């Protein structure tokens, strides 16, 4: 569906986009995530034919996207959804019908179908500006899908929504994406969105794609410290592999020995990545099944979303995510002595 | 509702183009004349009569004689009707015009405030009147626009061998009626052609303080702009107007003009009209 080769250009001095190769197959829901300024929106703009790139090649739906003759055809075969809903000061119905009107195509019930699908049929005769935020987003989405485009591009579409509305819409969208088989490219800063909606994703930073694969893959096995940092691995420890038995590596880090299942060789310099969700905090000195078990002192206990982040000092810094019940149950406080443990399979090594 | 809004400009466009067609290029004759001819109303009378048979459209533009000659010198006018003899002679000598025909006259009068601070009343010679005005340092409004009236006024100052005080001498830079209105406002002296004065008499407070001097005679001429020099000139149209003005019916119109309104004849024919 989308093939990029050698896309290179400079937007501003010191900032450029450089994508040697990217393929997005048809029907895939693809996320591009990264921090601000990573170039995600620029890449999306290139796909949307907003940005004149000039370098390399871009093929969309089998057509050369740089050829001006293809421009209108391609534009009419894709939809773009901005983070703000840009709606006409008109009824919901006419807003959703706009893409058809622009193409001179007849309605044939497509508008009604979309209103139904996005659950906004009740509003069809109301002025779009009178709706709530979530409802307006649904109108924007309905409008984007009414022509059943082959490709839908979304630029941080949920960034201005409340969490609850976001969850509802994302759930509905997952169903719709799967059913329609549309190719979707979604840009977001929120890893949660990527995990929930997408089949594959790319992590971008400073105009480059750092890693590309399934969300689960990237989250569990980030390829570099940068990626690890962005996808929420909060414990990244420099160390070196001191021993190996089958694929169980002994890594010396922070003055302690960690056991990690990984494909590294003895003597490798590595970074040990441990996700906070994979760290268990307990008062139990018994290691149980966890290969990595350390005595630790609590440095900080901070609320985070619906849980707590507990910062630990095991001789090295370790961050754990602990449920509210556990924190209250164990009475965790800074200064307390506890035990922290994680599985050898939960940790991940990045070669340095 | 929408449709009505679009109708308006379409209709007006049609009307304007219609007007244009009527004033078609080959029918238009450009007459450049003086403001005194227009302000008295004589121009309207002759213009209407000339255009009655619909053969020609008269585009009559009234400016000072100076500007009129300038328009003649660039070929913008087809025919001139002016009253500035020296300039006219030079105009013809330099080849810009032909068939200069002096055909009509009226006279100028010197107007002043009723109280007459310069004691001009009763003075017979225009030059003497001007001498007195300068001596009394009374305010004087001049046309200041190189028109025939202005040129006449300058000649009288020359003859009087005096110059009025600079702060008392105001150059209006406008037409005859406008200058007269200004003079009236400022209670000043001015040189005005009698016809314009009569046509505005009821509206102003100035009175005639001197008249009758030969130097105050004001002669009007017609000049055809030379088509050989300016091929774009409507020579046929100009000639048609020329012949019309010099015809008997026109003569009668001119001589009758103003009689019923002002009780006096304003313009006199000096030409054996055919």
């Amino acid at each position, binding site marked *: 569906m989308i093939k990029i080769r050698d896309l290179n250009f400079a937007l501003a001095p010191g900032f450029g986009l450089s994508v040697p190769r990217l393929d997005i197959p048809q029907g895939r829901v693809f996320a591009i995530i990264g921090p601000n300024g990573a170039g995600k929106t620029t890449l999306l703009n290139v796909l949307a034919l907003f940005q004149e790139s000039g370098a390399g090649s871009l093929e969309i739906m089998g057509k050369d996207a740089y050829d001006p003759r293809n421009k209108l055809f391609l534009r009419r075969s894709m939809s773009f959804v901005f983070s703000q809903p840009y709606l006409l000061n008109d009824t919901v119905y006419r807003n959703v019908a706009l*893409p058809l009107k622009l193409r001179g195509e007849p309605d044939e019930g497509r508008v009604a179908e979309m209103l139904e699908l996005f659950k906004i049929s009740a509003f069809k005769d109301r002025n779009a500006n009178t709706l709530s935020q979530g409802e307006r987003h649904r109108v924007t989405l309905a409008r984007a899908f009414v022509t059943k485009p082959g490709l839908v591009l979304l630029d941080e579409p949920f960034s201005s929504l409340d969490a609850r509305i976001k969850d509802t819409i994302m759930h509905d969208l997952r169903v719709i994406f799967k059913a329609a088989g549309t190719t979707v490219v979604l840009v977001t800063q929120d890893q949660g969105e990527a995990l929930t909606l997408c089949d594959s994703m790319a992590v971008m930073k400073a105009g480059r794609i750092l890693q590309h694969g399934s969300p689960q893959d990237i989250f569990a096995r980030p390829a570099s410290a940068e990626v690890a940092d962005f996808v929420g691995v909060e414990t990244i420890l420099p160390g070196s592999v001191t021993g190996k038995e089958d694929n169980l590596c002994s890594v010396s880090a922070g003055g302690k020995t960690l056991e990690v299942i990984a494909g590294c060789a003895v003597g490798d310099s590595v970074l040990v990545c441990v996700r906070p969700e994979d760290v268990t905090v307990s008062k139990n000195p018994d290691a149980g099944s966890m290969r990595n078990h350390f005595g630790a002192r609590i440095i900080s206990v901070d609320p985070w979303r619906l849980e707590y982040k507990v910062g630990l000092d095991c001789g090295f810094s370790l961050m754990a995510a602990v449920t509210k019940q556990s924190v209250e149950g164990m009475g965790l406080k800074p200064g307390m002595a506890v035990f922290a443990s994680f599985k050898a399979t939960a940790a991940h090594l990045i070669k340095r | 509702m929408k449709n009505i809004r679009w109708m308006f400009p379409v209709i007006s466009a049609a009307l304007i183009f219609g007007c244009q067609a009527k004033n078609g290029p080959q029918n238009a004759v450009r007459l450049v004349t003086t403001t005194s001819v227009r302000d008295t109303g004589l121009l309207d009378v002759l213009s209407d009569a000339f255009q009655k048979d619909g053969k020609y459209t008269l585009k009559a533009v009234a400016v000072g004689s100076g500007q009129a000659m300038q328009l003649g010198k660039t070929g913008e006018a087809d025919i001139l009707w002016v009253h500035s003899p020296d300039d006219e002679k030079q105009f013809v000598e330099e080849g810009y015009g032909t068939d200069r025909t002096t055909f009509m006259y009226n006279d100028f009068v010197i107007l002043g405030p009723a109280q007459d601070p310069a004691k001009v009343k009763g003075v017979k010679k225009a030059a003497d009147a001007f001498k007195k005005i300068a001596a009394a340092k009374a305010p004087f409004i001049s046309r200041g626009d190189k028109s025939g009236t202005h040129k006449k006024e300058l000649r009288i100052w020359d003859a009087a061998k005096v110059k009025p005080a600079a702060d008392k001498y105001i150059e209006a830079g406008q037409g005859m*009626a406008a200058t007269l209105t200004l003079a009236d406002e400022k209670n000043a002296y001015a040189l005005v052609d009698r016809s314009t004065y009569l046509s505005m008499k009821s509206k102003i407070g100035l009175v005639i303080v001197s008249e009758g001097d030969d130097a105050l005679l004001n002669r009007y001429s017609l000049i055809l702009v030379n088509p050989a020099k300016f091929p774009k000139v409507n020579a046929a149209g100009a000639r048609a107007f020329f012949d019309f003005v010099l015809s008997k019916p026109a003569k009668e119109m001119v001589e009758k003009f103003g009689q019923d309104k002002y009780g006096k004849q304003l313009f006199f024919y000096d030409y054996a009209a055919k």
Partner: protein
Amino acid sequence: MEFIVSGFQKGIALIFSGNAEVYAIARLSLLVSMFATVISVLIGVPLGALIAVKKFPSKKIVISLVNTGMGLPPVVVGLLVMLFLSRSGPLSFLEWLYTPMGMVLAQVIIATPVITGLSMSAMQSIDPKFYRQILTLGAGEWQALAVCLKEIKLSVLAAVIAGFGSVISEVGAVMIVGGNIRSQTRVLTTATVLQTQMGNYDMAIALGLILIGLTFIINLALTFIQQQKAQAYNAK
């Protein structure tokens, strides 16, 4: 004071007396200015919208030019138009000097920058991403402009009102280009000047009152439409 009052009385009487010449003058004023405004709108609105929305190298210069054009002294426009239309000028073949079409031309040159500038700023008040969004929905560039203009139609109407106002009350340019020729190019403004200079104050006042009246009625009509649309917008 008294003669002003009597001037007004005579003036009003003149309007209602059905004086043919007065009506002809008023009619010509309306025709010329409305026609000129329509042409200026057809040029100025799309042009202003286009300048606002497109990126191009000399954009800042073009915007400055438009803004300068808005402040162009009309009488200077009149002078230049007259020179161009004169027999020695490059446009003499049009033969529009001393005709209503010449006056329309001068008024178009005066009104177009006004309408362009106002349309341009109305368009700039739209989020630029809105235009892009409409493009992404499958609009060609002109289609997208039309959709955007529809969204700001209240402001566009204000631009039309401003454009019309700038020409119906203009006197210098139409005097120079038209020549103030009786029953051919004499309009309310130039006729008022002439009558004032000749001291016919009652006639001048009559013409002046008609001019104010006409301007008021047309503005009233356009504002009425604008406010109706505004109300509809707010009610929704």
